[in-house]
């Protein structure tokens, strides 16, 4: 079972690398910001898989904080950085 969890986590990590390409290429600020959001969501998935694999429930808390604060950066982006760019 652990092998499966790690295989899935690895797959999600590869997804993150696809996101990195989007950060590099852009082209607009919103594309880059959405890539960062993808990072946040995927990291939650990776953390939950790692939590199952290592039976470490503390990682659930880390995933919780991740998911709560991911919304914050996107709101800050939309309310501050995006409007000033247009």
């Amino acid at each position, binding site marked *: 079972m652990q092998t499966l969890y790690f295989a899935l986590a690895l797959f999600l990590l590869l997804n993150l690398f696809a996101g*990195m390409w989007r950060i590099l290429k852009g082209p607009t600020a919103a594309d*880059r910001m959405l890539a960062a959001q993808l990072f946040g969501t995927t990291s939650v998935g990776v953390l939950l898989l790692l939590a199952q694999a290592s039976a470490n429930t503390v990682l659930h808390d880390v995933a919780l904080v991740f998911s709560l604060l991911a919304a914050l950066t996107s709101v800050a982006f939309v309310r*501050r950085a995006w409007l000033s760019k247009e």
Partner: protein
Amino acid sequence: MEALALLQDVFDILLGFGLLWLAWLALFSLDLFRSIVSFISFGLLMAIIWVRLDAPDVALAEAAIGAGLTGALFLAAFAKLQPASVNGKGSSINPQKQSSRKQLLRWLPALIMLWIASGLTIAILALPPHATGLTSEVTSNLTASGVSNPVTAVLLNFRGYDTLLEIVVLLLALLAVWSIGSSVPSIESEPGPVLDTLSRLLVPILIMVSAYLLWVGAHAPGGAFQAGAVLGAAGVLLVLSGWKLYPGLEGFPLRLVLTAGSITFVVIAILTMLVSGTFMQFPPAQASILILILEMVATLSIGVTLAALFIGSPPTDIKKL
């Protein structure tokens, strides 16, 4: 079993390379916004790496402060930089003189970094190959600390002054931001129904999670800084949805909350000195309740300080503009 080890190795190696690549992007991008996004993603990957290194406490702090709040702070700073950078391009007089001064200013940090790097190298080379660390010492004294999470025991009891100084550093940062002042009044549009609903849903949850992290810190990863960061996030979200502090609370009450963490810390430290004779030595019987009081007040101060850092100027100033 072999497949698992291989998978773990590939996972860790990819994580490491990804982190380096994002660090490179964050440092050497010409596009400032790309640097910020890279930095936010860097924080997320870093938190996963802390988890892989079996340090969930650090991962929690990194997730709350590194990935969440710092990202929001950077985005707000980026927004404030926008008009200034447009003006800067047009009005840069004397590029020659500036560049020579800039050259000098570039070498100075490089020299300081070199000095720090060589010091660190010497320190690492001087380490004994097999260090036992202080783990056994901490575990043997854990019962006297008042908490069962060794990290909280070290941060709030054994080395409490570290935490005190960290809170003071945050306060100093806010003082610096306030004294620089920002003359750019942020033009706020009305928050739409989506943001309205989001903040109504999310702020209570953030406050609850903050309290949870504070409470759980006594026996598991969590604690004042993580809780404070989540509370600060709630504050930032409120500010972003157009919430304003009641005018009566902007002056002294706000400053009192901002400094409450450091004040309580110092008062308790002095009281314990009067009782037990040593600065900040908690009596084991009362250590638990003292740490809880300290952490509660510190969480509040840290949260409000972080939210105030996000606003960037004292609330009384915004009114004057």
